[in-house]
């Protein structure tokens, strides 16, 4: 290097790509994934395939939001559909009463979901483990009860239909959702890797110790609820407008369990885990449509088998085999390497035979 390297310039980007991204299979896969999502329409514009990818992307956002709360801070939410469904309804009702476009009602719905997140987070502060999970479970069910009590306002069990579209064509809708998805993912990724993320991990591991160090765990726990609820609400609003219907189906127990399954399948307490889990399982369920009766059965069997042998999640399990941490400098290396790429220490140390 004879000339100084300026950040964000092309040579810097290429160097970064070569040494930081392509050096590791995990990061390469992430890059390929983002490129795939952005460039897929060049491959095919079949509306059905676009539909599947759009739904997968918004469900992946939903799963990632769940993971931020439950995987990172350990406050396992079994009622995440509360935020998802509430935002969908809010967006629909705001659109109906005030005539606003989805560009406004969806963020507003997500903000309402954020408030709901704090609402759920408050009683949860006193609760631990399964107690907390049960309380979170109660909220979508109570909301469903309320919806049925005021059918004229909420549309009862049929929900609100005829919601305005997100875009003029499946392609437009696809790019909108994928765009929101990738930006949100970037935000969540940055958050998880920041100090705040560190506190989340710490709170999960040992809240008492964290408090002893002087950190205000209440603030961080509520923050986790709020941010998680916001993104779940964003996904919920997009979903309602994509389907053109906001119904009590979005608050169902099944809808609460889905992000749990996807996230744990992919690997909790990571952001890429829920994304991978959703992108693996949701399209799979679609593909299995050809075996209509055996569909759910195959799905359940798959989860059982994969979880039995890769309990930390598929992505973590795979990454563990593909990447290795250097014993001295802790930098990640691809499994094909014999020496660490940063400090040169030999990896895969073998036992010395006497």
């Amino acid at each position, binding site marked *: 290097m004879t000339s100084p390297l300026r950040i964000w310039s092309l040579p810097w980007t290429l160097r970064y790509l070569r040494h930081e991204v392509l050096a590791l299979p995990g990061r390469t896969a992430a890059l390929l994934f983002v490129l795939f999502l952005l460039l897929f329409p060049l491959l095919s514009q079949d509306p059905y395939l676009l539909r599947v990818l759009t739904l997968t992307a918004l469900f992946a956002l939903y799963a990632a939001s769940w993971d931020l709360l*439950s*995987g990172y801070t350990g406050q*396992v939410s079994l009622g995440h559909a509360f935020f998802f469904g509430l935002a969908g309804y809010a967006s629909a009702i705001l659109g109906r009463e005030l005539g606003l476009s989805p560009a406004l009602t969806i963020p507003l719905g997500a903000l309402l979901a954020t408030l709901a997140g704090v609402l759920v987070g408050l*009683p949860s502060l*006193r*609760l*631990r*483990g*399964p*107690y907390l999970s*049960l*309380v979170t*479970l*109660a909220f979508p*069910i*109570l909301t*469903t*009860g309320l919806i*049925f*009590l005021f059918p004229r306002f909420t549309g009862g069990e049929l929900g609100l239909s005829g919601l305005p579209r997100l875009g003029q064509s499946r392609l437009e809708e696809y790019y909108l959702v994928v765009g929101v998805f990738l930006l949100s993912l970037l935000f969540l990724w940055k958050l998880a890797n920041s100090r705040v993320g560190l506190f989340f991990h710490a709170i999960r591991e040992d809240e008492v110790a964290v408090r002893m160090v002087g950190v205000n765990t209440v603030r961080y726990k509520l923050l986790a609820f709020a941010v998680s609820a916001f993104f779940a609400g964003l996904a919920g609003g997009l979903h309602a407008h994509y389907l053109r219907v906001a119904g009590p189906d979005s608050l169902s*127990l099944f809808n609460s*369990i889905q992000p*749990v*399954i996807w996230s*744990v*399948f992919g690997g*909790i307490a990571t952001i890429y885990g829920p994304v991978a889990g959703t992108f693996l399982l949701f399209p799979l369920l679609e593909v299995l449509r050809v075996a209509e*009766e*055996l569909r*759910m*059965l195959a*799905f*359940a*069997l798959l*989860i*059982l088998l994969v*979880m*039995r042998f890769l*309990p*930390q999640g598929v992505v973590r399990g795979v990454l563990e085999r593909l990447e290795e941490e250097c014993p001295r400098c802790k930098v990640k290396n691809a499994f094909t390497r014999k020496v660490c790429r940063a400090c040169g220490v030999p990896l895969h140390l073998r036992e010395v035979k006497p």
Partner: protein
Amino acid sequence: MLSAILVNGLVLSGIYGMLALGFALTYGVARILNLAHTAFYMAAAYGLFFFLERMGFAPAALLASLLVLLIALAAYKLLLEPLREHEATVLIVTIALGLLLQEVVLLLFGAHFRSVPALLPGFVEVFGVRVAQQALLALLFAGVVLLLAWAFLKGTRLGLGIRAVAQDQEAAELVGISLSRAGNWAVGLGAFLAALAGLAVAPMATLEPHMWNAPLLVVLAAVVLGGLGSLPGALLGAVVLAFAEVVVVNLVPGGAFLRTAVALLILVLVLVFRPEGLFGTAFAEER
């Protein structure tokens, strides 16, 4: 009115009680939040339906409960015990197990509603309320089962061991109680109780592949309400929620659909004031 609430409440308490006790055992001892618990209950009911076409009630009931016991123990040994440390994974594995049972039932029996013929047809009038004789039989059965379970847990050494592990795992290990043995027994007993509940309910209820969803919520709520790790607490929780359901259905004729919501509302309220449930102990976190 009052008599209707009392009678129906008691019958429902019996069923929920058996389910809640089984669930509390599995959680308290093996520390597994078994979301497939009520799926075992469903499997037993369908098993009874299946075997009844080929034999009398007693052998069919026996075979059905043995079948469920077998499934539960196999699931525990092959899937759940190896995954002990990964709590979140165990959770979705039990969900997947419940889904699996549901799909198998759907494949074998279809989505149609099935009925198991009642052992005791007809009804009696109790305090002016017409009660199916089968319901009274179920109540009696539940009572006997719960008493026997109680006798087992209080009176035998094995029962003592199980209770000890439910109360404090580390201390129990310190005094030499085998955790894995207690776990096996608790899982087996829990599944057996769920199966018995299924057998009791089958002649009264309608069998359908989703019949395990609503009771699951109630059982979860009952056990948490009573306090996790507390066996009498689980029973009390079951009784409270059963009566709450019956009261709602009887007093609010247009509001029967709210029964699950009310049960959960009660749960939330209780937890706000007593975060460990009614009888739960706020013990230090286990490592």
